[in-house]
């Protein structure tokens, strides 16, 4: 399986509205140049950004090339299979902030049958689990995280299911895409406020 990150200019629509910068990524032209695969096998396939490795129960994520302190990231995610290694199940999510390999947090949906915020950082390794959720492989899900005033709101299909403390409240971090199985991502929208 090849790891392939397209190094072509992103087909990003950038606009500014009400003080917010909006970046949209549809991957229709095969371009994922603004994304860095931190782990996993990522490639653009059929107009979507796809993570293709489900050989073990690992975190796989790709992060965007600019940082977010306040704003939001949302995506349409389609888990393509249940990762049966370690009973992970179908899984997708959003990297809320990636500071470096040792400091990041991600909202994950479906892994081990639940929704949770995964936190990695000095003295902050942990997980806040806030509910049961088993996505169906092949089904589209729209998810979003909103960063505001040191808080993170996690939304699924427009319903905010948790508001949590930002573990890195004053530090900007790169938003991204997260999964633990084969998963397709499309129609990313990033809003950056006041930066």
């Amino acid at each position, binding site marked *: 399986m090849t790891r392939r990150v397209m190094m072509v200019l992103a087909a990003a629509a950038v606009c500014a509205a009400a003080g917010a910068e909006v970046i949209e990524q549809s991957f229709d032209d095969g371009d994922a140049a603004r994304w860095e695969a931190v782990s996993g096998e990522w490639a653009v396939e059929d107009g979507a950004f796809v993570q293709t490795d489900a050989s073990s129960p690992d975190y796989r994520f790709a992060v965007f090339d600019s940082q977010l302190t306040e704003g939001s990231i949302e995506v349409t995610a389609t888990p393509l299979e*249940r990762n*049966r290694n370690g009973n992970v199940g179908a899984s997708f999510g959003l990297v809320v902030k990636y500071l470096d390999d040792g400091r990041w947090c991600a909202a994950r949906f479906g892994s081990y*049958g*639940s929704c949770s*915020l995964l*936190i990695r950082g000095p003295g902050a390794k*942990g997980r*806040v*689990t*806030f*509910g*049961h959720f088993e996505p169906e492989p092949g089904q589209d899900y729209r998810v*979003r995280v*909103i960063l*505001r*005033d040191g*808080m993170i*709101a996690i*939304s*699924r*299909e*427009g*319903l*905010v*299911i*948790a*508001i*949590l*403390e930002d573990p890195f409240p004053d530090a900007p971090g790169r938003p991204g895409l997260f999964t633990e199985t084969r998963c397709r991502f499309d129609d990313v929208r990033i809003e950056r406020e006041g930066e």
Partner: protein
Amino acid sequence: MRIRWLILSGILGILAPSAPAQEQVYVDDFEQGAEGWTVVHGASRWKAVDGRYVFEEPGWGRHMTVAPVRMIEGTITVRATPLAESQAHGWASFGVIVKYADSAHLVAVRFGAYNGVSVIRWDGGDRAIEGVGRLDAEVGREYEARLEVEGDQLRTFLDGEPLAPITIGWAGEPGRVGLCTETPASFDDFTVTGVEPLAADRPEQIEGTPRTSVEFASFQPDPLLPGEVIPVRGQLHLFVRNSGDGPAVLEGVELDGRSGEELVADGVLAWYHQHPQRIRPGEVGRVTLRLGGVSEEQALMLMAGAEPPAARVVLRHLKADPVQCEATLGPDAEPLRINMLTFGPDLRTVRAYLQAPDPPEGGFVLEAVEVNGRDVTDRARFGSRRVAGAVVPVEITLEEPLTWGRHATVTVSTEQGLSCGHCLRAFPSEFPIQVCLFEQVREDSIEDIHNHCFTAVAPRRDEHVSEMKRLGLDLLAFGGGLGRIMQWWQPENPRVIAFWLDERDERPVEDTIRPLNEAHEYYLQEGRYIPRQMINLVGPWTGTGMAFMDILDVVCHAYGMGGAINGADFPLLSSLPWRELRAGRRPWWPYFRSAEIALAVDPGSREVLQPAPTTQRVIEPAQERMMTYGCLQLGAKGICHWAYGIQGGDRSVYYLDGPGLRLSMGGVPYPTSRTVRGYEVPEGVCRALKATWDEIGRINAELQTIGPWVADSDPSPIARVTRSQPPEAVTGGPAAQASALVSGLDTVIVIALNLNIDTEWSGRDPEGIRSYEPVDATIELRLPEWIDPADTFSVDWRGIEDVEATHDGDRLVFELPELAIQRVIVVTGDPEVRSRMAERLQEMQERLRAMESHQPVPTDEE
């Protein structure tokens, strides 16, 4: 001429409806969905995909769905393809429901399960499984099953080959037909001859005309988990008065202009319901909507510190005009609450425990109290009329007893104009100490359990039941649903305390609501209410677990080692707000995965090998004791244990992939014998099991002594450790902790606990307790104004002793210079409490003597 009913385009069509008394055929090719099918048992995850009806859930269980037709005599054919093997058993399967009345009365044929073809017949509490053939079902291969029903006979054909015929009963009786499976499978071309339409549902019968109004609304936000900052999930309670002359039955709700059904489909609501199901004329009941989250706009308002606009709610009751109200859904919408309702043995006494965590100056002043809408202020005794941060009991003595198992609603109003309420099914409050059973290699296991001061057992066989009856043990059954209730809740059996529904939050909440509603409705037709339903939740503190709280009667969760999750900061009282008691506001009976170990074995040499990675040792007696009293500090009102006995031998057991023995509690007949299933269990393992098992007996003696008072209590922040030496535990945090359980209007039980322990809870460390040094502690109890302490004493299994206390104004101060693990101190204004506890303890001490002297009796085959 044939009448053919076709399901095409998802619509039931009658092609030739004018020919009576002819064979009628129902066909579903699932090309346009699965219209009219109803999931009736197991998981809900059936769906029509590409012209097939598919069940994909990989977990285990029996999953059933029925078609919108029934049959007396006829033939069912279906093409079925197993999609995956069972993760637990290693076989693939599919099945057909031949006749279905309800989940306790059905006939089904399963193909491939346990590598056979078998007919399952459930008739109330009786269940029979009879093999009619063999089948190692191949994943991906399509099979054709045909089942012919004539009179009481069933003939089964697989790919045209006849299997053994069988008598199933049901002659002349109709039943719904359908599909079932225990593993992922897909189905197509489901065809049934001899069908007839379902009888039309009888509409709910209402005599008279209800007239409903909302007395008040309150939003109960889910407690914040560590890391959460603003609650977005919770329960909206609407207290509804019926001033009409007919019962009020809830038909539907709307929230901000959207119907309840629509909101449930979108996940905004997990469910909505009304308790009791019929609010009688003159009564007040409670409608609750379970909110799974808020909109992004509402979330942004909350994050900005603003209050979202009030929610508009409409309630529609049968034969009544709709009622509307507005409700605030913010995080601070519940300044006063009833933490808990308890009920006296005759159900004529109700106690409400109130608290105002963030009270106004001077607290809330209680004005009036109602039970089921009737003003009982004159019949109520208030611990105090003022409620602030400490818990205040209100005791109500009713003229007539409440109905056993029916919801009772208590509402309280204040001078400040604020009201609060609670609604629980009425059962006499009690403190059960229960154990489930594995397989037994002792003849005397029930007697051994009795000697170890248990109150209840989940039996496996009839001989267990007869022995339980002889010894006066109650029945707390493992398993749930209508069939289990019919099996165990019988006059000839011991008294049923509750049913244990296990790990239900592994599946969506609707998969539990369905069987519970079925059981409630079945018995309501007889005018009866079903016994308590205890649900063991894997994640009681999450949004999913919280969604179960208002549909269960008792909340349960695993504590201990080997996969149990004690939760963050156990047992610190700082975690009380999000733990089971406060989250559920109903009794919490934890279950312990405690005194057990799993050992690998070599069936060839009959040697016992190493312990499983997560059961490197048996939990030690001191750790078991510390865990038990930690749970009591956090408000536990009963203790369950999983489980007594043994499992395995030449097969695998939980914790191990290969062959092994799982040994638990007193299951090994040691010291009479160390032989289990032909394996000699090491002496050290037997000693460790017995040491903890006997300590459980001693702990149980203490729990039985104080149990009735603990069952009728609520933790209140009126006790604290004012000094301890060392000040900090060896691993950090406080070295000691004190909890006060306010019990009625005359008693407080103070539990002091030594937290100076260095141990681990994963079971992966063979060392166990590394240190547990005593603590020198000073405990202070702020006496509630309604208690004039006439007696102060401590309780342990050795006896009851006076305790010296220093009065300091409204405070009692206790010096505990050698706090080894726990001290239980009873402070009471009722001089009879000591004698009643002493009487109970004396009986338990007699059992402990039997525990010490009894010689285990192995079964013949051991």
